[in-house]
């Protein structure tokens, strides 16, 4: 079946502009995660959605970052007033279960470059 998809695959923007990144999780997966991968930094947790529960936003680096998940499926990560340090690969993952350690399935990522 279809895996996690993300769009766009690449995004180049100018400093100060807003960007929206989209994630389509695997159908039926209740949990959705956003991570950021910077060069030499590994993957950094940003935000977590689980069903209808309030999202865990503890990883968002600043109030310029926000995310929503509509209808328990598609998610959008928005970065306002982008800065050069926001340049990274943004990865989305989904998983089917709530207990234990879910197997997280990752999308290919969106490579964001802020000029």
């Amino acid at each position: 079946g279809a895996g996690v998809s993300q769009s766009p695959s690449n995004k180049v923007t100018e400093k100060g502009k807003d960007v929206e990144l989209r994630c389509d999780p695997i159908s039926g997966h209740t949990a959705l995660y956003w991570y950021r991968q910077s060069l030499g930094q590994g993957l950094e947790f940003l935000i977590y959605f689980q069903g209808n529960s309030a999202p865990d936003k503890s990883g968002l680096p600043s109030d310029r970052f926000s995310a929503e998940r509509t209808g328990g499926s598609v998610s959008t990560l928005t970065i306002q007033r982008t800065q050069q340090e926001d340049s990274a690969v943004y990865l989305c993952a989904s998983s089917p279960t709530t207990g234990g350690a879910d197997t997280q399935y990752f999308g290919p990522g969106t490579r964001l470059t802020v000029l």
Partner: protein
Amino acid sequence: QKEVEQDPGPLSVPEGAIVSLNCTYSNSAFQYFMWYRQYSRKGPELLMYTYSSGNKEDGRFTAQVDKSSKYISLFIRDSQPSDSATYLCAMSGRYGGATNKLIFGTGTLLAVQP
């Protein structure tokens, strides 16, 4: 100090060699340990998953967890050029919010030379 430490490499080995990849961690709350493989410009894919201490084998791959030493390993036997990728260790435990958020190492870049 990072919660998870991983040597970034790069690690270069000849085809057929046994590869050993390692991570150390500081948070004793971690219970679930994973290894992901990431090819260039692709998302990570899960290779191995282990709960608590012990060994797990899957084909040419063996994962080991030593919770007393806070040390995990991934061994690749008979390495192939197709194994060339970045290998990321990841861990999770029980948190108040995101129960299953993964804490990743920085990844080790592996090159298997034909």
